Each structure stands twice: as C-alpha cells, then as structure tokens.
C-alpha cells in the first residue's frame, strides 16, 4: 500500500529507488516475471544434514547417559563395559542400570515428541501436547486403577490399558474442545486438559494413598521417570514401530489439512480419515510413552517447536525430526536429573517441566500464539 501511494506523490522516484534498489524502477514486466517464478530452493539436502546432525547428537547423548551416573565412569571403564564386559562393578552399572534407562528414555522421548507434533498439527494449537491435555494422565489412571485392584499387570496389559485411558481422555478433551469450532481454541483445549489432568491426578493419588501395598510401585505414576520401563520396552517395541508408522503415514494428510479441510479434500485427502489416523497415532504413542515412563508433561510441547524451527512446515520431515528431538531431549534431561540432585536423582518428568514450563510461558505470551 505504502509503495503504491508513494508513487503518486512528487517524491516518488526517491522512494521507488529506495524500495526496489535491485530492480530497475520502470520495468514492471521483468519485476512480475521474477516474482512468478521463484528460484527453486533445494530444501532436501539441508534437511537430510539436519537429520544426520540430530542423529549424531542422539548418539552423543547415549554416550553421556552411559558415562554419567551417580558416579561418573572413566573412559576406560566405559570401553571395558561396552567391548569386553566381565562383570566388574562399573560393567554392571553401565550395562544393567544405565543402558536400560537410556533405551527407555529414547523410546519414550521419541514417542512423546511425535505425539506432540501430531497434536499441535491437528489442533493447529502451539500450546497443545499430550501431557497438558490430560491424555498422559488418563493413561496413567487406567494403569493405576487396575493395578490397585488386581496387582501389577504384564507389560502388554498395561499398554492396552494405557491406550484405552489415553483414548478416553483424548475423546473427552477434543470432544469438549470442539464446541469452540474446528480443532478447538487453544484456551478451551488447555483448560479442559487441565481439568482432566487434575481429575485423573486426584484419583491416582487417592488410589495410591488407599492401596498401601502398591504405594512404592505406584508412586512412579505420579511424576514420570525412566528408571523402570526397560522390561516393558523389551516386549512393547512393536507398539513404538506401529505408532511411528502411523505417524509417518499421517504426514501427507496433515500437510494437506494445514491448508484447511476444503483444500485437503480437493487434494484427495478425506479429513475424517486423516484425523482418525492422527488420533490413532497420538493414542498409540502417548499410551506407549506413559507405560514406559509415566505421565511426562511439557516434552510434547517443546519438541514440535524445535522440530518446526529446524525442518520447516513439511510434516514428512517434521515428524521424524521430532522423534529424534524428543529422544535427544528426554535422554539429556535424564542425565541432567542425575547431575542436579546428587547423590539422589531428579525424576526426568521434573527436569522436563523445569525446562518446558518457562518455554510454555514464553509461547503463551507471544502475540500470535494461535496459529501453527
């Protein structure tokens, strides 16, 4: 507008020169032609290299996680444990304590990262995530309430319960959130999520206080920690793969839905189909993460923002990227938790909340907090 107006007033030549220094001022045809055909940018190479850098960072985090514990191992001990273990104390610490929790952190982090990206993409809401929307707490409640009455369950039963709880919570939250129009307004979703979280957390703590026998094993479900999920992971890894496949299969649909449901239809994507696929992936991934590590909030919030910053708007790249980011973040947070509270340790859910809550405040304060 300003450029057009300025061309009509006497001082026009100066302004034109200032605004379009690179273009000759009186050659509109060439100017338009240049606009119509933007130079093709190669986005694939930088994305592949970003993925490789992230993968390398995950590798480094695995190394750190094996290296740092309640006591820090020496490099020789690490090499000894990895290459030629013979049962000395440091071997046991590294192979049987640190390795399992590293794997658990990687799996839960990847799952939560992808679930967060899918939720933010489908709701177009930059402050949505499975922890804050109550989905994780719903899964935890399902596991805890059954465990309190019948004793601890095998991993697959727990996972199925978690999936059921996550699905129920997700249906409640998104169902109520939809009153505010498609996808729900950020605030409605978040408040209903907060209410569902409080409700489930209240019932969980009541159950934990009521069933004294199971108290110690159940306390785990209140904060989120990766100490004891390895056994479950050994039998649940197919669920992680299934969830990842579902998420990746949803990427094209999500890309189309970002343009609006009408445009998506013209691209041959049925909204209902894509949304259903997304919901299935979200439920599978967050149910798995909760079975492995308990209800962790804020991780699914942080990861999509980082992944979108790196990979742009194309979900075919953002989803694998957020899997790597989530794994990296949860693994590093677990290491930090071991370092911050020596000789004890801080549950990883607390570390993630310490990192994620300030970021949440930052996102919530920004002016255009509504669009993804």
């Amino acid at each position, binding site marked *: 507008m300003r450029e057009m107006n300025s061309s009509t007033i006497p001082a026009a030549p100066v302004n034109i020169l200032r605004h379009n220094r690179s273009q000759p001022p009186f050659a509109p045809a060439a100017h338009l032609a240049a606009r119509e055909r933007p130079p093709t940018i190669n986005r694939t190479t930088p994305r592949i290299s970003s993925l490789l850098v992230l993968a390398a960072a995950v590798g480094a985090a695995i190394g750190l996680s094996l290296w740092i514990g309640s006591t820090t191992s020496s490099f020789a001990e690490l090499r000894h444990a990895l290459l030629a273990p013979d049962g000395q104390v440091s071997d046991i610490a590294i192979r049987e304590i640190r390795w399992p929790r590293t794997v658990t952190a990687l799996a839960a982090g990847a799952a939560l990262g992808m679930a967060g990206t899918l939720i933010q993409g489908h709701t177009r809401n930059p*402050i949505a995530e499975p922890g*804050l929307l109550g989905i994780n707490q719903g899964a935890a409640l399902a596991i805890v309430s059954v465990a309190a009455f019948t004793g601890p369950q095998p991993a697959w039963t727990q996972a199925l319960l978690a999936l059921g709880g996550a699905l129920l919570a997700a249906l409640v939250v998104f169902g*109520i959130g939809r*009153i*505010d129009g498609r996808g729900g*307004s*950020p*605030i*409605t979703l*978040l*408040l*209903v999520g*907060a*209410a*569902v979280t*409080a*409700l489930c*957390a*209240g*019932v969980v*703590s*009541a159950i934990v*206080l*009521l069933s*004294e026998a199971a108290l110690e094993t159940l306390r785990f479900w209140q*904060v989120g920690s990766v100490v004891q999920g390895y056994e479950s992971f050994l039998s649940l890894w197919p669920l992680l793969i299934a969830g990842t496949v579902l998420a990746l299969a949803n990427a094209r649909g999500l890309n189309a839905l970002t343009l609006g449901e009408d445009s998506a239809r013209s691209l041959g994507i049925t909204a209902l189909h894509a949304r259903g696929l997304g919901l299935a992936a979200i439920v599978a991934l967050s149910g798995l993460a909760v079975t492995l590590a308990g209800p962790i*909030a*804020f991780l699914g919030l942080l990861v999509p923002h980082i992944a979108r910053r790196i990979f742009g708007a194309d979900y075919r790249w953002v989803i694998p990227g957020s899997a790597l980011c989530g794994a990296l973040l949860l693994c590093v947070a677990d290491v930090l938790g071991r370092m*911050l*509270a020596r000789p*004890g*340790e*801080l*549950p990883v859910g*607390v570390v993630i*909340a*310490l990192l*994620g*809550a*300030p970021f*949440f*405040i930052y996102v*919530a*304060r920004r*002016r255009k*907090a509504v669009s993804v």
Partner: protein
Amino acid sequence: MSTRAIPKPAQVLRARRAAATGLLLLAVAFAAFCLHLAIGGTPIAIGDVLATLFGAAPDARTELAILEFRLPRSVAAVLAGAGFGVAGALTQNVARNPLASPDILGVTNGAALGAVCVLAISAHTAGRSELLVLYGLPVAATVGGLLVSALVFALVWRSSLESNRLVLVGLGFSGLCAALTSWMLTLGEIYNAQQALTWLAGTINAISWADLAIAPAVIVLGLVAAALLRNQREVLALDSDTSRALGMHLGRDRVLMLGIASLLAIAATVIAGPLAFVALASGHAARLVARGTIPPVPHAALIGAIFVLLADLLAARAFPVILPAGVATAVIGAPYLIFLVIRQSKIRQRG
C-alpha cells in the same frame, strides 16, 4: 447520592435476592459445620454437638473430643474455604474472567513452593526445626505466592488482564512451581517426606489450635477489606475505559485488589495446603447464586467454606483410609471447570 435515595426496582430485587440467598447459604454452611463436627471416628449426635458449642456439653469426653480435636479441623476448613472463595471472587472480578483464580494462576502453587522450601531446610536444622516451621513457613509461603502473582500479572499487564493469556501464563507458572516443588522434595531429603506430600495434596487432618495462629487473622482482615472495597469492585467490573472515565485509579485499585486476593489465597494455603479448584469454583458459583455484576464477598466466603467442609467430610470419612481433602476438591472441582469452559465458549459463540 440521589440515585441511592430513589432505588430502582431492579436494584431492590437484586439486593433482596442477594440477602435471601446469603441467609440460605449461611444456614447451609452452619449445617455443614455441625455435620463436620458430628461425623468422625465415633459419631456424636447433632444435639450433643449443638449443646457443646453453646457451652452445655453432655459429658467431659464429648466436650474434649469436640472442642479440642474436631473444632480446630472444622474451623480450619471454614477459614481456608472462605479465604480461597473470596480470593477467587476478587481475582475474577479484577481480571473480568471467570477462569482467573489464584489456583489456576499459580499463586497457591507458589505459596506451596515457599512452604516446601522451609520444610526442606528444616530437615537439616536439628533442634530449632519446629520454630522454623511455625514462623518460617507462613513467611516463605507469602513470599512465594506474592512473587508468582507479581510475575504472572507483570507479564500480561501490558496486553490486557482480561485476555486469556493471563490464564495461560498462570498455568505455565503453576507447572513451573509444581516442578520446583518436586525438586525441593528430592533435594532436601526430607525425613518427613510423607508429611510434605500429604500437605501438598491439601489436608486439614491433624490440625490443632496451635496451628491456627497467624493465618486466620490474615483471612479475617482480608475478608473485611474485600467487603469494604465493594464500590471499587463494582467499578472494576465495568470495562477499563468506562472505569477510567469514571475517574478510577485503575492500576492502583487493581493492584490493591489482587494483593488482597493473593494474601487470602496464601493464608488459606498455609492453613490447608493448596486445595485445588476451591477458589475457581466458589468465586464463580457465588456470582451465579447472587446474580449480580460482581460475586458478593459473603456468598463467596460461605460457598468456599461449604465446599471445603463437605469435600473434607467425603475424603476423610467415605473411605477406609483418611484421604487429604485436596483429592476430593480436585475430583469435584475439575468437572466444574469443564462446565465453566463449555458455558463460556457458548457465551462467546453467541457473541
């Protein structure tokens, strides 16, 4: 002045309605109070409870049980409920948003964080720890709560207090304080970690007269101040341009009101721990009942008291184990929040 002399019928009706509902709430609150005193490990007949309250106890055992063991609990429930309820009403009043309340905005979590810091330190100071908890805990809770409320409001002050950004930023601070509290719990190696955890869930079990020292005074003063500031609250309920045009010092009145609200919520937290959703639900319910532009102070206080009394009764007596009252307020209050959210978005859709 002259408008007061010739009252409009609507105003009269509203005043009558407020008075009638207020009396009704008072009766319900008294009934809940007596019920709370009567139901316990061994039930005591309501008649005996009333007789003991008016100084004519049937026997010494009943007198001891009621006056020394049960009365502090019930009084604590009433005080905490009233404090939370009025704090919620004031905050909703100033922010002009029914979802803004001290528990959602992180004030109660900030107070809890301060209190847990003191509990963590007291584990390391052998000998003087009881004194530290008695005096240090209220001070630390006040510092924590005021700090969080100042931060939340400072971060959104410029945009507009009415925006939902206030609620979002508050939710963020709630999460942050909860995480810091868990960190404190592990750092302090608290010997009475179980005690700290129960306190964090919000409980009035095991309260004695000695625990009710400073905080009740703060709550009573806060209630009186809130009731006296009625005119300012009425004007703050108008939109900011109108109230500025009426010559209000908008900033000053808002800070004053939020300060009172925060102190009330903090004092209630010191007594009973961070009881979830009491402030949110009672502030809003008071406005529903009285149908005015602002939730009246007595209504909010009474509804808060009834809520906490009944929630504690449910949590402590309906299960084989005595549960903290906060569990019951969360389970009852969460659906109320959902109801509120649905209602608000329907209003917004209608325009």
